[in-house]
């Protein structure tokens, strides 16, 4: 198809042509960045977490008497085990994404302290016996804690527990000892030290900040006896088949409230915890989706409006072309090619803009570089949008009868 006449005609309508190009360019720039933001949030919301998420429910028990925990915890656990359908119960200090974070920094040298620049900040999970079962942790190397290690571990006045064993996540193991086995290695924070006896599949930290990053999975596990837990062990975990979970949670909450009348109980399924953590993020993602849809609609309106106007203006011109032998298909093609040219110009400018906005966001917000395929993806969707919106007006143009050419000359 000859495109020179199209250029000639566009030159005569410079302002409307520029407006369409500008509109496409802006839409392309905003669309690419918005879709990229959506994809980042969606991938954060679906971050992997190697625990049995659908089977876990938890009751947080706070405001108990620290002096009595040694007898309270075993009694509470026994009562929870008595609920029909319960597969495993245990007590821990926190859960992934619960916001209840206990962080500490460890180094790899015996004289490392918390303030050393080289120390790594990790999240600490203190767990009672059976927590590996109740959480559904997947052991990859080594072993989990044995009975002696649970019984021998307690809190005194120090911020870290008195024990010398730790289980860490796979990501952390790879980061601390790249290319080596982590088993038997030691984490130090004067005067404490802990030897790695097991490596588990990646479990999220209790808080991962606003966006996932390289520290998302830096979790460590320490055994803790009920006796020496000093009120730290407050999360009662109850694992069951997913279909029993909600009923069991209600029963567990009542059971614990009855056994501990002076305390405050709060039950949640693990799915609740996760949804709550990402609630802001998912509402932001939905808002972005809404903006994209409306923006594309507005852009399409604009194209439809301006092209219809063009068609109206060129009725006689079209009639003449039809009279001298152009088929309806030719006329359709003319408007579609014209739109393709305008969209291409718009997309070219839009890609530059999209890239610029991305660089700006990277400098001022926690944003990573947009992968290259967003640009051709954006271009393709705007080409399709352009063609779809020009279809109606072009058909109207094609239906102009040749006889128009003979009128009012």
């Amino acid at each position: 198809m000859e495109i020179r006449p199209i250029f000639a005609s566009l030159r005569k309508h410079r302002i409307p042509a520029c407006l369409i190009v500008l509109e496409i360019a802006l839409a392309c720039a905003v669309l690419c960045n918005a879709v990229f933001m959506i994809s980042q949030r969606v991938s954060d919301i679906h971050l992997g977490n190697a625990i049995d998420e659908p089977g876990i429910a938890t009751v947080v028990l706070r405001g108990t008497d620290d002096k009595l925990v040694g007898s309270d915890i075993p009694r509470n656990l026994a009562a929870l085990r008595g609920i029909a359908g319960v597969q495993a119960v245990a007590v821990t200090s926190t859960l992934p994404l619960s916001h209840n974070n206990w962080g500490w920094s460890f180094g790899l040298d015996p004289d490392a302290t918390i303030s050393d620049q080289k120390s790594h900040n990790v999240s600490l999970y203190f767990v009672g016996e059976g927590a590996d079962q109740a959480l559904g942790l997947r052991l990859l190397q080594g072993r989990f804690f044995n009975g002696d290690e649970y019984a021998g571990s307690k809190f005194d006045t120090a911020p870290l527990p008195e024990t010398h064993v730790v289980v860490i996540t796979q990501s952390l193991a790879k980061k601390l000892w790249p290319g080596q086995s982590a088993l038997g290695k030691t984490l130090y924070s004067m005067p404490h030290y802990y030897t790695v006896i097991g490596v588990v599949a990646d479990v999220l930290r209790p808080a991962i900040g606003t966006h996932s990053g390289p520290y998302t999975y830096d979790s460590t596990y320490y055994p803790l006896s009920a006796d020496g837990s000093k009120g730290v062990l407050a999360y009662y975990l109850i694992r069951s088949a997913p279909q029993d979970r909600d009923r069991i949670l209600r029963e567990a909450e009542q059971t614990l409230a009855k056994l501990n009348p002076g305390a405050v109980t709060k039950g949640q399924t693990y799915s609740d915890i996760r949804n709550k953590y990402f609630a802001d993020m998912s509402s932001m993602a939905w808002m972005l989706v809404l903006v994209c849809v409306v923006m594309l609609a507005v852009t399409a309106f604009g194209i439809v409006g301006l092209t219809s106007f063009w068609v109206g203006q060129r009725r006689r011109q079209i009639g003449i072309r039809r009279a001298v032998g152009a088929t309806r298909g030719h006329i359709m093609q003319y408007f579609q090619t014209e739109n393709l040219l305008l969209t291409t110009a718009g997309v070219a400018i839009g890609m530059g803009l999209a890239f610029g906005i991305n660089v700006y966001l990277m400098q001022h917000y926690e944003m990573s570089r947009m992968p290259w395929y967003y640009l051709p993806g954006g271009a393709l969707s705007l080409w399709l949008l352009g063609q779809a919106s020009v279809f109606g007006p072009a058909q109207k143009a094609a239906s102009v009868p040749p006889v128009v050419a003979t009128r009012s000359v």
Partner: protein
Amino acid sequence: MFAYYLDLALRSLRRNKVLTTLMVLALALGIGATITTLTVLRLLSGDPLPQKSAHLFYPQLDPNAKDGYIVGQTKPAPTMTYVDAMNLLHAHRAVRQAAMALSQAKILPQQGGKHPFFSDAVMTTADFFAMFDAPFQYGGGWTAADDDSGAQLVVIASFLNDKLFGGADSVGKTIRLNDRDFRIVGVLKPWAPQPRFYAQDLGGRSYGDGDAAFLPLRTARAIDMGPQDTECYAAVTDIKHLETAPCMWLGVWVELADDTAVADYRSFLSGYAQQQIAQGRFERPETALLDLMGWLRDQQVVPDDVRLQAGLAFGFLLICVVNTVGLLLAKCLRRSQEIGVRRALGATRREIFTQFMVEAAIVGMAGGVLGLLFAELGLLGIRHQPAEYASLAHLDLGMFFFTFVVALGASLIAGILPAWRACVLAPAPQLKAA
């Protein structure tokens, strides 16, 4: 004459309903999105204590080790150790000064059968209430003497007083906090600065109803109430005794009367840091004294997502305005003949220009009204979001008028190009064509 333009504009808008609807809708969507996000942005970046914020300052020191310190670049620590907080308080270099940390308190209603619950509590010192203009419904705060003696007393928020005592004057009564009895000395009127500036970086929420109970720092510590957030900078052997541990967990605020006082306090603060270095306690000389709004900016209290949303909404509004320009242009060029006739009958270019601007303004006003509706819908949507500030998202009178300013501004800007094109049309060719 204006009435005539108005009539012409309305006729013209009525003639092409689809195009008019598209314009109004596009503009309204852009305005709705912009006003919604701006309302949230304004809510989050507002001044929580307008009458006082210029006089409130947040001193900062840095007890961290030299390791990793870069002169002029390393920011001082956001919170303070107990030792430093008490040293600053006892120096009395400001009109008022208070140290504070957030905690959770278990509250047991006295009526039988009620369950205990946890509430946000603040452990602080005597000047807190006067310094932050916290208004009292009944009673008052406590004194510096109460601070020193560790008296078992508490100030409670109005919502807690409503819950426990049905809103009656409860001064002198006792409440059970963390399984101990406290005497109520004051009940606040509803008071919840947004954002809760004094809780920033102490581990609390920034928005919401505010704290339920306020108790003297020493008293709270005596019954082992712990801060929400603790940051240690050296090996700790005894975390129980936070007063001596190398850990930071207190925020300190001071009230300063004027610029001279601020300058004086600043030099006092750096003098204090130097003195601590000389004593071997500190290794870094960095200090800071930000005013309330400066501290909130430094803390980036407005979430990134909210600012991104506002930027996005403006981009969207721009697209809508460009779209409106295109549609208005299409409309006015289609009416070349009408313009030709009016020009031939004696209308000046200026009059044609005015006529088209009036038409654009009408589109703008219609877009504004519809945009307001969209904004209300958007805010309704936001209020149903789980964010902690969500319930505060309402359109105020200022934003209401601002909507129309934006709508009118956007439509007039959009109208300039088409109106200019219309008024420069030469009348003769148009007449001939007709």
